[in-house]
């Protein structure tokens, strides 16, 4: 009898995967062959042992959503930066320290097994683990090739169990935060703080809780209170200061945040946290404060860090992009933006003076037209066009007529070069309509022959030449 042939079918029989004929023949063989029956019995017992591995009581309700989000995030994060030598060196130093800790724990093994690990052990382990987490924190963003994993594993081997549990909860909380599950992250951190009470890890859990409060829970005020308690702690002070600025920005206190950020940049100029502070300061200037001079200064400094390779990848590209945008939107320098902002916030004689200054200083600026409009508004206000003027410009459509009239009033109200620029604009308006070309030509001739700035006279001559050419057609 070929037992081998049947043996192979036994596993399939156990899972009911044989067709009826084969199953019957295998069963017949089992009935006749004690050796195979013995094999079959042993297999059944092993199979019963496998069922001793219980399944879960329930499946998390949000599992599919969490998993999908993680997959999408990972797809986006791919191509993350690898580690630089500085981080390897830092990790190596910590590894040495960790070696000491492991050694200490090993010599401590001689104690009675029932003794709880001392609080000193817990505090030391927590301090080192916190240092590792802070290094991770500073290099937020890179995910691949983490040299701290091995180090952390090493530290955890020697750490007391409660520290291990706290650390595991903090790591999980970080993952949940990155996935947007802020409430879950917070409850894990509360658990961690409890486990690691009285150690650095408890404070680290506070820091992480503050991040969750700022990023997802919309409670920056609570985060500020929490962070306040961490600022005296030497290891966490800078990280707490950085998170404080983020909370301040969320509460609208951007100026205060900017002061803090600049101080942080000064304190840690070469460090990653210092660079992140510099980036956030520049972004705050640009996005929140509309302080373009400040933004230019800070982005220019960052651009140098980009050139040195200290800021790279997406962040470096973002810095370059911002600088380009800033420069393109302000071809005549940032003073023009500043002037425009002051103009927007003023009225009456001040607005007239500022608008005139703008037009004189930046006649070719894209915002010069807006400055002219503001000047007109400041001079004319809500006054209606007199009937005589309406009759004079009746051949234009109403809006054009109004604009020509307002520009004339504004030009009459201001002195110097600005008046000539406004006249030129008025002439350009008139030249745009066939019915008023004669008036335009006359005005242009006056500009050309008057004491207008050279570029205005050149522009007037060019425009008149165009009109002449049109007329001869």
């Amino acid at each position, binding site marked *: 009898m070929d037992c081998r042939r049947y*043996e*192979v*079918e*036994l*596993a*399939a029989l156990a*899972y009911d*995967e044989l067709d009826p004929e084969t199953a019957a023949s295998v069963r017949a063989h089992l009935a006749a062959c004690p050796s195979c029956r013995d094999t079959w019995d*042993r*297999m059944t*017992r*092993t*199979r*019963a*042992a*496998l069922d*001793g*591995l*219980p*399944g*879960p009581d329930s*499946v*998390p309700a949000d*599992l*599919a*959503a*969490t*998993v*999908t989000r*993680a*997959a*999408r995030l*990972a*797809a986006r994060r*791919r191509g993350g930066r690898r580690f630089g030598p500085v981080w390897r060196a830092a990790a190596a130093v910590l590894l040495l320290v960790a070696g000491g800790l492991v050694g200490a724990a090993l010599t401590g093994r001689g104690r009675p*097994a*029932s003794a*709880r690990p001392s609080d000193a052990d817990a505090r030391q382990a927590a301090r080192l683990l916190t240092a590792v987490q802070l290094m991770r924190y500073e290099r937020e963003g890179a995910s691949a090739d983490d040299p701290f994993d091995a180090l952390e594993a090493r530290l*955890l081997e020697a750490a007391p*169990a*409660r520290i*291990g*549990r706290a*650390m*595991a*909860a903090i790591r*999980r909380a970080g*993952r949940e935060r990155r996935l947007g599950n802020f409430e879950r992250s917070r409850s894990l951190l509360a658990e961690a703080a409890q486990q690691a009470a009285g150690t650095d890890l408890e404070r680290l859990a506070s820091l992480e809780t503050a991040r969750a409060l700022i990023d997802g829970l919309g409670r920056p005020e609570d985060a500020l209170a929490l962070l306040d308690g961490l600022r005296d702690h030497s290891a966490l002070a800078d990280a707490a200061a950085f998170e404080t600025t983020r909370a301040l920005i969320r509460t609208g206190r951007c100026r205060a945040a900017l002061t803090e950020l600049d101080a942080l940049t000064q304190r840690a100029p070469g460090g990653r946290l210092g660079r992140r502070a510099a980036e956030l300061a520049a972004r705050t200037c640009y996005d929140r404060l509309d302080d373009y001079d400040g933004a230019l200064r800070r982005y220019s400094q960052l651009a140098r860090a980009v050139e040195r390779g200290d800021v790279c990848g997406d962040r470096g590209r973002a810095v370059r992009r911002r600088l380009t945008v800033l420069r393109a939107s302000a071809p005549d320098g940032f003073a023009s933006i500043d002037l425009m902002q002051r103009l927007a916030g003023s009225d009456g004689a001040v607005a007239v003076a500022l608008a005139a200054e703008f037009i004189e200083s930046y006649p070719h600026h894209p915002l010069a037209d807006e400055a002219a409009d503001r000047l007109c508004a400041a001079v004319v206000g809500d006054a209606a066009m007199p009937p005589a003027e309406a009759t004079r410009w009746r051949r234009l459509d109403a809006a054009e007529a109004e604009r020509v009239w307002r520009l004339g009033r504004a030009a009459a109200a201001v002195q110097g070069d600005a008046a000539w620029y406004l006249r030129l604009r008025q002439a350009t308006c008139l030249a745009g309509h066939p019915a008023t070309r004669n008036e335009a030509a006359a005005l242009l001739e006056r500009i050309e022959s008057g004491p207008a700035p050279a570029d205005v006279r050149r522009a007037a001559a060019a425009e008149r030449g165009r009109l002449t050419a049109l007329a001869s057609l």
Partner: protein
Amino acid sequence: MGPDANDSLAALVATDPAAAVAALADRYAPDCYRLAYRLVQDHHTAQDCVQNAFVRVASRIDTWRGAGSLRAWLMRITTNEACRLAVSGRRVLPTAPDPALAAEEAPDPVEGRERADAVRRALLALPPGQRDVLTLRHYAQLPLADIAAERGCAVGTVKATLFQAYAALRRLLPDGLQPED
């Protein structure tokens, strides 16, 4: 999951991989979780494991050969991920019994956990091929034909591997767990 459900998923893989991953998660994440939980015996690690598996799936979905069912493919990746996490010992730390806490625990679950740990260790000690086949058939309840298609081999080979896995497992398991009554 009927064959047409799988067909539409397979079509989605070709046209919109991101949507396919979402659909896969919707349909199979609970199965993956149950499977992973068996192997790691920890709620959080099981979740991590399913997450990692789907991250892998998302990065490789365009290389899916189309041989075998997507479910089988997914289950194999989950198994590998679970074994990786279980072997790396991450689970051990958070749930290692603290001497002070152990006294408070009822005796029964502890015994159950020891038993489960013994089975888990034995499973992890199997050669990967045998381990995969056994896990996929026993815990994921995949038909042998699906496993064969996924592995790109004959059903007979899978049967033989499964049989060998049982023989090896019997040697690895402590005698107390398979009483000779």
